[in-house]
């Protein structure tokens, strides 16, 4: 049985696509046949983050409208075995996504894939609702910042009322909190919400904390999922999150301020 995982947040710019790329790659690295679908019709970006933007011929909307087959539209990742990308259309609008069409495509993908990652657009409009409707699990990407936390709570409300599982009275969608752009130094200084604060407010289980890191921008510049950067803390944190998603226990890392010398702190050096 394929598992459908939506990566969503409500607010834009918090790291949904970065997370979809990283988690999808991590699952595929471990031998699971995985496809990542870009649901952001009109504003596709997963292809850029995955570094396959020049290999897009057909897209998700072409498949929905019968203009191309899934095999034609799926892009095989060149770096990671078992990983495929289904890009969004850049020219159509969100109305191209119909519930029947999306269901048919997901059913077809479920026959060959073990994990289907749905990269949701920002907002709570049709694109976002379609991305989460068929989900078995949801990764709620949140920044430690007021508007992001509030929007995440809003998306949780939609998952709990407007998903297929909610409407049919099935088992609720399994929710995971992924806190991104976390800066332990600012948390210690009382300038940023702590992971405990966000967990307390949203009241869903914590999948992982991704530290704010220069390597995330570097990875997107290069079109490489950050999880492949094994030296980067952000890459390692995503790797831990994938392990937890698969049910393995991993202690959380990078939550505390890195130790710097007393003199560095005294001089106000950047920590």
């Amino acid at each position, binding site marked *: 049985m394929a598992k459908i995982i939506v990566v969503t947040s409500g607010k834009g710019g918090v790291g949904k696509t970065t997370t979809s790329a990283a988690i999808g790659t991590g699952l595929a690295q471990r031998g699971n046949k995985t496809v990542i679908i870009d649901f952001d019709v009109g504003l596709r970006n997963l292809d850029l983050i995955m570094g396959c933007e020049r290999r897009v011929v057909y897209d998700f909307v072409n498949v929905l409208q019968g203009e191309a087959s899934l095999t034609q539209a799926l892009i095989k990742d060149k770096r990671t075995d078992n990983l495929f990308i289904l890009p969004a259309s850049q020219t159509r609008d969100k109305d191209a996504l119909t519930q029947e069409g999306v269901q048919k495509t997901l059913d077809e993908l479920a026959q060959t894939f073990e994990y289907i990652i749905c990269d949701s657009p920002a907002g709570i409009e049709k694109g976002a609702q379609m991305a989460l409707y068929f989900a078995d699990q949801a990764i709620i990407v949140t920044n430690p910042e007021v508007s992001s936390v509030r929007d995440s709570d*809003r998306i949780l409300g939609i998952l709990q009322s407007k998903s297929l599982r909610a409407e049919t009275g099935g088992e609720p969608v399994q929710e995971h909190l992924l806190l991104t752009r976390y800066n332990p130094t600012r948390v210690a200084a*009382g300038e940023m919400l702590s992971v405990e604060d966000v967990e307390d407010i949203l009241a869903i289980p914590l999948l992982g904390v991704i530290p704010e890191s220069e390597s995330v921008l570097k990875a997107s510049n290069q079109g490489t999922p950050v999880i492949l950067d094994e030296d980067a803390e952000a890459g390692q944190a995503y790797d831990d999150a994938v392990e937890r998603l698969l049910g393995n226990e991993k202690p959380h890392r990078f939550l505390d301020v890195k130790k710097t010398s007393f003199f560095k702190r005294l001089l106000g050096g950047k920590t």
Partner: protein
Amino acid sequence: MSIFRYFRRTKSSTSANTARDRLQVIVAHERSQRKQPDFLPRMQQEILDVIKKYINISQEQISVQLDDSDDCSVLELNITLPEDLAQSSAK
């Protein structure tokens, strides 16, 4: 972190704490609204219309609230009546 900030740090009045407190309030408020059934605003309007037939009151003088506790729900209807009830009766 400079030497000044190192000593100035106080636990309760940080901006992160303000953020947490504000979020707790707004999220709790929005969750309670989410749980309300769709018909509540319409019912509220109809109750108001009935009362308006007899007494001159405005929208602000009536509040309808639904409280969900573990095993029962309480529908609370709160109407602030004008001081002189007889004179303010609607024609």
